[in-house]
């Protein structure tokens, strides 16, 4: 790795500025505070604008419009389309949402330039690995973890391999249109996964002491929002499983930071279970290694 600064481009997905209006500034502050040697630029993809819209905010921040068809996932796709082949000019691409500082964000404090250098050029995606209490299935893939999509970093090559970030763009295979039983019986997701989604969006969370910041009651009125939010969750899950499928290893920020503190970063990444059960803080229970 050369001594030149890393080049990181963040695609910051947002929907207008009613909520998290200062997300770009917060993100810049994070970089200025912890990643100041990094050449960092932001492209805001605003889903409240039209595709044709663009605006130059500052020397390091520009904004373009997104179509909001798959929330942040289609926004990132719009950003990637905007970048075209120039994506190769960056060491890392950040996929970030304007809500990146909501719900358990201590892991963001562990970001550092040496940490990012562990990922640049490698088949790794860096972020916060979340997990469920039991495996779930989606499209016939069984999985129990996902990398949080409000803030992750990947080498551009991994995004090129991925193709589109939004992989579930059509709700018709999943939802019934009935708030009492919102999922189709033959939807390609397991009962456990249905329960998890319901519990996270409308219930008491996944039993890990964390609850979503915007829980709501599922009614006929909120059904459309439920379906969109559920589809975002499914896209988030699919993003992780597709990355794993292409050989891109999920890398937990807190675990990697703790290994770096201990000056003991293994050459070969352990499994996601081994990573999150050996964090120095916010450690997942050891039983995860045997479930």
């Amino acid at each position, binding site marked *: 790795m050369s001594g030149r600064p890393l080049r990181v481009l963040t695609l910051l997905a947002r929907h207008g500025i009613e909520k998290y209006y200062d997300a770009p500034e917060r993100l810049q502050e994070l970089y200025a505070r912890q990643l100041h040697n990094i050449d960092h630029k932001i492209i805001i993809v605003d889903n409240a604008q039209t595709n044709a819209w663009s605006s130059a905010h500052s020397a390091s921040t520009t904004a373009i419009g997104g179509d909001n068809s798959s929330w942040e996932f289609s926004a990132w796709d719009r950003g990637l389309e905007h970048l075209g082949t120039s994506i190769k000019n960056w060491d890392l691409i950040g996929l970030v949402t304007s809500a990146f500082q909501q719900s358990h964000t201590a892991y963001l404090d562990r970001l550092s330039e040496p940490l990012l250098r562990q990922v640049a050029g490698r*088949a790794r995606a860096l972020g916060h690995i979340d997990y469920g209490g039991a495996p779930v299935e989606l499209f*016939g893939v069984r999985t129990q973890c996902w990398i949080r999509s409000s803030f992750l970093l990947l*080498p551009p090559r991994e995004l090129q391999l991925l193709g589109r970030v939004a992989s579930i763009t059509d709700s018709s295979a999943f939802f019934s249109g009935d708030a009492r039983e919102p999922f189709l019986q033959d939807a390609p997701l397991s009962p456990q996964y249905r329960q998890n989604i319901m519990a996270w969006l409308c219930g008491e969370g996944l039993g890990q002491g964390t609850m979503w910041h915007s829980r709501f009651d599922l009614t006929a009125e909120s059904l459309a929002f439920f379906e969109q939010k559920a589809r975002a969750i499914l896209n988030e899950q699919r993003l992780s499983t597709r990355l794993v499928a292409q050989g891109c290893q999920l890398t937990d920020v807190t675990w990697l930071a703790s290994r770096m503190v201990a000056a003991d970063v293994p050459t070969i990444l352990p499994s996601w279970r081994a990573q999150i059960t050996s964090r120095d803080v916010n450690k997942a229970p050891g039983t995860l290694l045997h479930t």
Partner: protein
Amino acid sequence: MTGKNPLHVLLDISDASLAEAGTLLDKALMDGGWLGVAARVDVILPSGEQVAARQGVVLHASKLPRTVLVHAVEAATAARASLLILLAAGVSASNEIIPELRAALDADPLLGTAQPLFASPMNDRLWTPWGEEPEATLSRDALPELPAHIITAECVSACLLIRPGLLSDLVLTRELLLDGSLPGALAFVLLGARRRGFRNVCCTRAVVVTEAPRERIYPTLSGKDLQTLCAADPSYERIRREDRQMPLARLAPLLGVAPCATWRQRRLLLDCRGLSPIHNGTSRNMLGQLEGFAVRGGDWDIDIVCGEHASAFHGLPERFPGLNHLTALPRPGYTAAFRLSQPWNWQVFSELHHRALVLGFNMLDTIAWDIGYVAPEGLGDVWRFAARHADMLTFISHFSRARFYQRFSRPAHLPEAVVHLSLSAAEHTRPDWQAPEARHHVLLFGNSYDHKGIGPALDLLRRAFPTVSIVVVGGTSPSSGQVRTLLSGEVTEEEIHGLISSAQAILFPSFYEGFGLPVVEGLSYGRPVLVRASPLWNEIAAHSRLPGNLVTFRDDSELVDRLGRILAGLPVPALEKAVALDADKPAPSWNSGVEQTLTALVQALDGAAERWLDRDLALGGRT
């Protein structure tokens, strides 16, 4: 759709040690996520090993692996299930790859088996099913450039998904299966599938990360197995050999060094084999370009290949210590190869094509093909091929570019640039020769080729100016009292500078040039230079601010008139300078030229893989 069929998994850990079998099984099932996803999991344990039963898992402890294979195939056939075979204990494939493998089979009903690629966790490099290297060598950077699905010959690997029903009516000749190893038996199954038209597909978007060595990922078949397979199908070896020789197998290593990855330098091979161990215009041109590459090539890792004699003669390693110097062609693995002069034969094309993804040539001129008698046989076809199949071309003048495209077609896609040689006086002059005390001769430049026009010009000068001292660089007639003749290529650089800077006037009577470096050198010393009228000279004057005057003549009488006026100190009409330059824009330099070249090479990276394959096909067996 294979996705609607159930999945069966056959996991072979029979080669694990007895002590680790249980742990390995649990790890494979948990990390792989196979339980729940697969309707049935058959596990082949080491012989004699007993492990506790697992729900949903059929354990086989004392059967021959190939026997279990037969059972697994029969069970999958009965259930109309896809059968995933995981061969090796140390290869921990996880179930996330299944949608990719299934999608590959869904893409074509005649694809019978699908397999992922395998990558080393140490460096992310990949093993290739068509290769035989002992290490994983394919750069992951190549993956986005490769097709998502590559059809290959049947290939037994540690992870293989078999289409539902593929084996339903396949005659599983038990005698053959039971006579060989498990990989051998699998190879036989795949061979049977292929002979019916069902191919194997390698999914480049499904990658299993594993520490396992090649022999575990792609098991080597025993001699006995190969004998059986070749007996069943005499074309077996030929088809596998053709696979190893497929263009993609040669392209893939080049793709790995091609992308504009900022974390790693691009590799550039500069082909300077056209450099001769003499001082002439071509040498000065190439040395000038190398100066530019030495200064401006910082984003590239540059290797120069040059003949040993020429490299030593020009002292290349000493002049350009920042570049890597080679005297023989290196192994493949360059982002780009750029030849500082034209290709003269197919061999050059082939050599560079197989070493680099992007191929560029600096077309100096088309003189050799036009005058014919110095051109190697087939040169026209080589340049026609260059016009059609090079990734980028540079031309040393608009004049040369126009001649080239007039003679050879111009594909619309071709990135190209006119890269003038240096027109900066500072780069063509030496301070110690700037102001010689005496100006006492007319300098005549050329060589023995007819288009240089030197013989008739010399005769004319002798007749018209019998008292003027004449020095001929590149002359053929012996020296006489009035004329001093120096053979081209046998004059040192110092002598050239001395002769130019001390000339009263310089005559360059050539009919046809690509650039005319001696003209620029003469102008750089402020000397008046007479040239035969040509659009080239208007171009040179328009792109330069050189101190000397460029004076054209149309015929002998005009030459005599204008040279006479110069020798008498009288004014002569000169071509207008710098009309093509913005006021604040410097004239072209070696550095700016190299920047243009590198920019064109980077542009040529887009779509280069597809063009490489086209070129490979077009080159065929040409060498």
